[in-house]
């Protein structure tokens, strides 16, 4: 550890976001993962949900523990909603809406990720809420933003990643584009959503004013593609698929090693790195990167001639020892045993009441004095109703029983 980290880690403090209360209504990833990160650093995050219209991560998206399709067996929900509380409310019941409003009135932040207009129709729109609580911060995250001709067009992350241009940039030039596996752009929007909320909290600390944030997942994603936009606008070229070629480094690729589906990634950025690679694997090529790019196919073949008989991790170790940038292409199962990620505590172990022992994901940045704390997986449906409606809203047991009987907590 450096001195900076040592100095600050001395007195362990409460979570950096301790004392912050967040109420969240939404589904899948793009809204709820914002709450996850806030919870990881100490915010009290209350997930308001309904048994009548459950999150698709609870109902539709596998995997489910032991294949049992039930809300509390849903892996995606449990994995990506760690540290939150769950309270159930039927928002089709007028008393449900009133309770939601009361709860949001006691919060600092309200996060929602429904189709534009949904919360306003329920009487929970930012204008209504902030008329009563001007200091409230409301984050609305949706596919394409709250306004504009496509605001009401339904969509999800995998396809929005295609529209934004990510997919067009992935694959071999001689073949079709390929997917970025999942709803990539959603997670970009999660990062910007958390940043937006935290920036609004900073402004509120200075001015006292709340904020209404309209986050378009599409616009968030385009930030990560800015150079491709500029390249087209300035030079008239549309960037496309390039396999693993790079504009600067050569060689720059992924090479097969011994065994089934074992690969090493390596790249050469400087003359000494190139000389080291040549010495290590006995290849020859042009002295400049531009020259090597021109003979890319032959060079890649020569490198793979060296890598394919070797064991992946041994090859990586030899390349690194020689001063060449290299890494194993880790499979997903290997991530859970990777020593570097393990050292950083990337996968905290937790126990879920229905799923049993499982892992959750730590934030990819570590704070030296107020580290993230992850002790609870995503909550079971309504696990915290007593705390939320009893302790926070002060409803008596009898009142809660009546509301339960009337279906308000469905």
């Amino acid at each position: 550890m450096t001195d900076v980290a040592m100095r600050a880690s001395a007195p362990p403090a409460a979570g950096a976001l301790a004392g912050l209360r967040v109420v969240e209504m939404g589904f899948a990833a793009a809204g709820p993962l914002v709450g996850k990160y806030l919870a990881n650093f100490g915010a009290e995050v209350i997930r308001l949900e309904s048994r009548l219209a459950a999150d698709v991560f609870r109902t539709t998206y596998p995997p489910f523990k032991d294949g049992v399709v039930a809300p509390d067996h849903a892996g995606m929900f449990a994995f990506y909603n760690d540290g939150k509380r769950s309270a159930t409310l039927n928002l089709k019941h007028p008393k449900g809406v009133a309770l939601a409003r009361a709860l949001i009135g006691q919060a600092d932040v309200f996060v929602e990720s429904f189709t534009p207009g949904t919360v306003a129709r329920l009487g929970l729109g930012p204008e209504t809420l902030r008329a009563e609580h001007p200091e409230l911060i409301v984050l609305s995250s949706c596919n394409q933003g709250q306004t504009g001709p496509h605001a009401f067009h339904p969509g999800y992350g995998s396809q929005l990643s295609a529209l934004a241009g990510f997919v067009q940039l992935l694959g071999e030039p001689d073949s079709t584009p390929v997917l970025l596996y999942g709803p990539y752009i959603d997670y970009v929007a999660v990062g910007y959503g958390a940043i937006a909320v935290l920036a609004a909290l900073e402004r509120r600390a200075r001015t006292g004013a709340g904020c209404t944030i309209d986050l378009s997942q599409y616009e968030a994603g385009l930030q990560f593609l800015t150079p491709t936009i500029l390249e087209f606008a300035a030079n008239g070229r549309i960037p496309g698929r390039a396999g693993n070629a790079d504009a600067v480094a050569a060689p720059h690729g992924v090479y097969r090693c011994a065994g089934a589906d074992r690969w090493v990634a390596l790249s050469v950025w400087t003359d000494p790195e190139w000389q080291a690679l040549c010495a290590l694997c006995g290849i020859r090529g042009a002295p400049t990167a531009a020259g090597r790019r021109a003979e890319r196919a032959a060079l890649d073949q020569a490198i793979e001639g060296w890598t394919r008989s070797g064991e992946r991790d041994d090859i990586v170790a030899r390349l690194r020892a020689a001063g060449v940038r290299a890494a194993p292409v880790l499979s997903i199962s290997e991530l859970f045993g990777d020593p570097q990620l393990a050292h950083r505590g990337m996968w905290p172990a937790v126990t879920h009441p229905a799923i049993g022992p499982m892992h959750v994901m730590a934030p990819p940045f570590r704070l030296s004095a107020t580290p993230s704390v992850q002790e609870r997986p995503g909550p079971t449906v309504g696990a915290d109703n007593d705390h939320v409606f009893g302790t926070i809203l002060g409803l008596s047991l009898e009142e809660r029983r009546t509301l339960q009987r009337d279906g308000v907590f469905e």
Partner: protein
Amino acid sequence: MKVEPPGGEPDRLVPPFVGDVENAERSIPWLAANVNKRGITCDLASEDGRNAFARVASTARIVVESFPPGLLRELGLDEALRDAIVVSITPYGQDGPLAGVAGSDLEVTAASGSLWLAGEEGRAPVRTAQPQSPYWSGMYGAMGALVALRSPVAQRVDVSAQAAMTTVHPPAPVWWDIAGEEHGRTGPFLLGRSNVGSRFRNLWQCADGFVSFAIQGGPIGRHTGRMLAEWMRERGALTPSIAAIDWDGFDNTTLTQPQVDELEAAIAPFLRSLTKAEFFTEVVKRKMLGYPVGDASDSLADPQLAARDFWRTLVPAEGLAPLPFPGGFALFDGERPAVRRPAPRVGEHNAEIYGEAGLDAGALAQLRAVGAV
């Protein structure tokens, strides 16, 4: 404030360049990453340079750095940064077995599992042609800094690019953790939507490129299927297999692979007959799930982005034509944060910023004379 070595940082020479003219003010990736900043130069290898930097840095609440772990301490800059939140961004993090190991976008993406999941079965994994890990790492660095701002203690934010890229590919880690199933590369197919292991095509050839579309369940997926059948009927392209589907009870999660293949074979010729623009207009009109596979030219022409005043025109450097930059990533009380100024020229704000830190013109001239700025 962007701090660079005298002469500018090496990344100023990363191609491509505006107008294909290679110089320190025309690198497109650099211009993209540095709008809205002021810039100074400073030689951290010299004592005068370090003192000048310390003077500026001691006024900052947040300092972001991406040197190899430990370099700030070796340079003796710890004291100047005592009260700042120091955000450190490195390939693998500040400590642990790989701390200090060099890595570029390709290697950290490989070590994150992201590369494993991208590409075609049987072929080498591929990375996004526009490098992504710098954006992810930078985004998480900003998030970390803002979380740290809420704490009364000045502290270190340690961002690992490998860890950052590990967060970008749900649901794969959950499939392994909960179900013991290893997902891999599937090219244009989506995994993880089926309870019986079927995969669904999500990228299709169309008349002038590709579109993103899938057979889906759930209320919107069923609506999409119903609308597709109607659209095919209008065009005289409806096949018996699509016509036979009762969309009200349609459930994609239980379809076997042969069933999925049969439906997809029936849809493919229809999608192949459409242009991207035609597809986009109709899916929006019919409220169906699906989009064309866009590129940079499509983004700039998108009516939704235009209606939300997303693009902000800016002259990127003196003597160049204006270019469209993405505006702020969200609207705050209806306002989009502005793109206020282009990326700085090398040392553009030396006088201004060092002046604010209390160095007068004479002192600055002296630093310049010894090459410290």
